[in-house]
């Protein structure tokens, strides 16, 4: 007969440490009432035990929020690595990037991951915003979380913008020069703000140091804090938005355990996202042009792609409207959105209703046609400035074209409303789609369809 050995001192110590990590008491362990490790951890402060069946469906959210988080984590980790080798001074910055790419093991790959993750993050967040909007996730009780999400989006754009300067190549230098140059057109405080952002009259050593500090300390900290708040509010609102009225009685009570069903899906999505970014970064290098030369502007010089829509607008309307009035109206509109819609029971349904979907498609098509017509018309047909030389340019290139364009859009919207007998929510959605599509068209035009001297050109021409 074998006698069971009493556990050694070392084993006891290990088990006590283990219990302290899993937050189990020794008494509970002896009584066999052990906490399950995973359900007891931090994960379940963000997740309930069970979620409605619909919330666990991939197509309800497309996992966009989760993918964004994965990208942020990738950015944090690769950013920390790059920070070990990067030197934020104009005469050293470019060379330190070259050093990272040439001499640091996996340096090129790490920089690529950082670069592509940042770009993907801006896209994924934009899509996430559309998902939340089109499934009604910005309505009660999630109104304020929409605002928090917008703040996060702006912080990420600021991160992308400040990060854009750091390689100190021609692309970086001139993109930041002309984007901050746009501030010249903002009346009263624009010039002052420009000097503060640049740390002087031109992009130089002070700008680089400022951008570096903001990019590597202020913004990551801000993003982390606001992100946690954002997630907490999602949990407090009862998880992601799902249809309030399921189609069948059967579906009404159906729920899925978070562990393992939902977490497994999330893990798969996260791993797929990581794999995609890593492979993409191994295949495509982040751009790096010649070292910045303040005396030599490239032709054409374009703003970073996420602000390029404004540069396109600047080509068509008076700067006061292009860089101040229209962006502020768009931002204000986005902030006000959750407070314009009434609390409708249609939350969780894509595009609000079948009618809303049809109207949305019509609206998107109209936006593409109208904005393309506007761009082409401005390039080839009308020359208002020469036709009406007597009037001030604020009127000729600002008020007048905007009034005409808005008039045409208003007529279209009235037609849409009559045609579909739409309610206010469907109308707001149509206008939202129109504005978003229009801005995307502007972005694509300036990014890919403008060549030398910013003239319209085919990207392959």
């Amino acid at each position, binding site marked *: 007969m074998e006698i069971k050995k009493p556990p050694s001192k070392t084993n006891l110590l290990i088990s006590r440490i283990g219990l302290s990590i899993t937050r189990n008491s020794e008494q509970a362990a002896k009584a066999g009432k052990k906490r399950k490790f995973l359900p007891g951890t931090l994960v379940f402060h963000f997740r309930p035990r069970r979620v409605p069946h619909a919330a666990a469906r991939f197509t309800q959210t497309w996992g966009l929020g989760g993918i964004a988080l994965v990208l942020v984590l990738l950015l944090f980790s690769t950013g920390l690595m790059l920070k070990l080798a990067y030197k934020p001074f104009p005469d050293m910055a470019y060379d330190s990037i070259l050093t990272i790419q040439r001499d640091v093991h996996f340096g090129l790959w790490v920089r690529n991951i950082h670069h592509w993750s940042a770009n993907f993050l801006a896209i994924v967040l934009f899509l996430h915003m559309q998902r939340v909007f089109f499934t009604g996730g910005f309505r009660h009780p999630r109104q304020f979380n929409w605002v928090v999400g917008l703040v996060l989006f702006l912080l990420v754009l600021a991160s992308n913008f400040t990060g854009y300067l750091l390689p100190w190549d021609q692309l970086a230098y001139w993109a930041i020069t002309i984007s901050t*140059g746009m501030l010249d057109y903002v009346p009263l405080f624009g010039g002052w703000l420009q000097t503060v952002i640049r740390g002087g009259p*031109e992009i130089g050593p002070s700008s680089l140091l400022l951008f570096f500090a903001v990019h590597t300390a202020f913004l990551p900290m801000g993003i982390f804090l606001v992100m946690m708040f954002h997630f907490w509010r999602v949990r407090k609102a009862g998880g992601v938005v799902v249809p309030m009225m399921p189609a069948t009685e059967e579906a009404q009570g159906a729920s899925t355990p978070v562990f393992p069903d939902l977490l497994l899906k999330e893990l798969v999505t996260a791993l797929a996202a990581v794999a995609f970014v890593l492979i993409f970064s191994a295949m495509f290098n982040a751009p790096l042009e010649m070292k910045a030369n303040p005396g030599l502007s490239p032709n054409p010089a374009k703003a970073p792609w996420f602000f390029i829509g404004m540069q396109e607008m600047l080509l068509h309307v008076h700067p006061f409207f292009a860089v101040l009035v229209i962006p502020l109206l768009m931002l204000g509109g986005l902030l006000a959105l959750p407070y314009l819609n009434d609390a409708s029971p249609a939350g969780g349904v894509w595009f609000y209703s079948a009618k809303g979907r049809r109207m949305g498609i019509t609206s998107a098509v109209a936006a593409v046609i109208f904005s393309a017509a506007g761009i082409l018309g401005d390039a080839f047909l009308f020359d208002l400035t020469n036709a009406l030389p007597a009037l001030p340019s604020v009127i000729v290139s600002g008020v007048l074209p905007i009034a005409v364009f808005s008039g045409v859009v208003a007529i279209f919207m009235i037609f849409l409303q009559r045609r579909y007998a739409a309610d206010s929510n469907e109308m707001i959605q149509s206008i939202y789609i129109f504005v978003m599509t229009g801005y995307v068209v502007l972005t694509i035009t300036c990014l890919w369809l403008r060549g030398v001297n910013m003239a319209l050109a085919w990207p392959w021409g």
Partner: protein
Amino acid sequence: MKQQKKPKETEARPVTPRRGFLNMLWWALGALAIAELIGLVVAFIRPGKKASQKEGYGGLVTCGPTSDFQVNTVTAFQRGHFYLARLKSGGFMALSRKCTHLGCTVIWDEKKSHFECPCHASAFNLAGDVISKPAPRALDYHRIIIENNIVKVDTGKRIKRQRFSDDQVTAV
């Protein structure tokens, strides 16, 4: 009902003015503290004066004797970020190389004899006036000092203008 309400009001009344005032004072102090903090941060991040007192760009740049510069020519001064132009009249202008559209560096095109912005195709004539858009106004210029026939340019301040006029030219 009316009798019940009245004593409540009288009860609250003697407390209100002083407490209300003190509460207001607290809020005002809090607001003042926040304003001070914002002011401090802004003052801290605002660029100091040192940048404009250094050699080269931001200071006084000596270009050379007036006879070195032919009429109708442009000389680039990389160090001072400006072009020294000698107009038909024989007068000098120190033009900032920054395009007034979005701040790119303009290039002097000898053949076409005008300044051209490579970024968005704005063009300016010898005196800095806009020939073609999108630039909204003439190139900025710097003050010129001519002492003993030596041309010096004060790059500390860029002077903005809508269009060219004769009083911007420094005669020899």
